[in-house]
């Protein structure tokens, strides 16, 4: 029994050690992506191009934090659905200001 428990503990520690390697890789990726975002901001590109690059890189960084540091990859369905619902509401919120654009161009 105690041997079995010891094996389980060893497996558990190995599992955590594997996670630590992943955390370090994610940390390096986040640091590199931060430098990339700053470097791109100094390039002579249009606002739309700069916007899409900046938001894309931020989304990748955010996804890495969510998936690995916040363990969303292995999380239960209940949490995934809470976040999906929130994300849809968030997107609606983001698109509300665009209504003012349609007003300015007299589409309606």
């Amino acid at each position, binding site marked *: 029994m105690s041997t079995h428990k010891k094996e389980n503990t060893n497996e*558990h*520690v190995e599992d*955590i*050690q594997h*996670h*630590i390697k992943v*955390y*370090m890789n*994610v*940390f390096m990726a*986040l*640091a590199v992506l*931060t*430098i990339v*975002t*700053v470097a791109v*901001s100094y390039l002579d590109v249009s*606002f739309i191009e*700069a*916007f899409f690059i*900046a*938001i894309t*890189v*931020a989304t990748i*960084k*955010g996804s890495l*934090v*969510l998936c690995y*540091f*916040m363990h969303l990859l292995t999380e*239960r*369905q*209940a*949490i995934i659905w*809470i*976040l999906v*619902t*929130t*994300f849809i*509401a*968030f997107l609606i*919120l*983001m698109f*509300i*200001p*665009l209504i*003012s*654009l349609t007003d300015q161009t007299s589409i309606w």
Partner: protein
Amino acid sequence: MSNIPYILEERPDTGLNNSKLGIWIFIASEIMLFGGLFSAYVFLRIAAPEGDFDYWGSKLSIPMATFNTLVLITSSVTMVMSWASLKMQQFDKYKMYLGITILCGLAFLVVKYFEYTGKFHHGVYPSSSTFMGIYFTLTGLHVIHIIGGLLVLGFFWTSQADKMWEQDQDLLANRIEITGLYWHFVDLVWIFLFPILYLL
């Protein structure tokens, strides 16, 4: 240790303990809180005179914000390392990593203090422009979240954590996991604030 049910054990219906479900619902509400302000930023930017946001945005310090971004990313990895240390029964390492996380949070606040006072010194206030209004609102709210997080992290760095570790190791690991989720969320918000306010 506690009479409140499902603090550590999973509820059969949700498959989660209430601590984790609670923090994720809280994070969802926080996403909508910051989402409202992000939406306001988009609206104000669309409505602003051409070049206004560029002009006022150029007054911000990109090196300081880049440094702060790296500090928060570092604090996120040390936060998750403190949790991993508890899982590996290494309490001393937990204390060390949590201490580094707290130091990173404090470093972020110090840099922010210099950023804010630098602006005030040059006569730039939230009332100076629309951009500065939304800049101080978004970053100010974020700073309040950092301070709140630091208070909780500070608590778990005191002797209270030592007592909890002696009494119930799983409970402390659970508390740190939940606190960590909040701290990573604060980092996540900054990941989006940084390009939107400083780089665009």
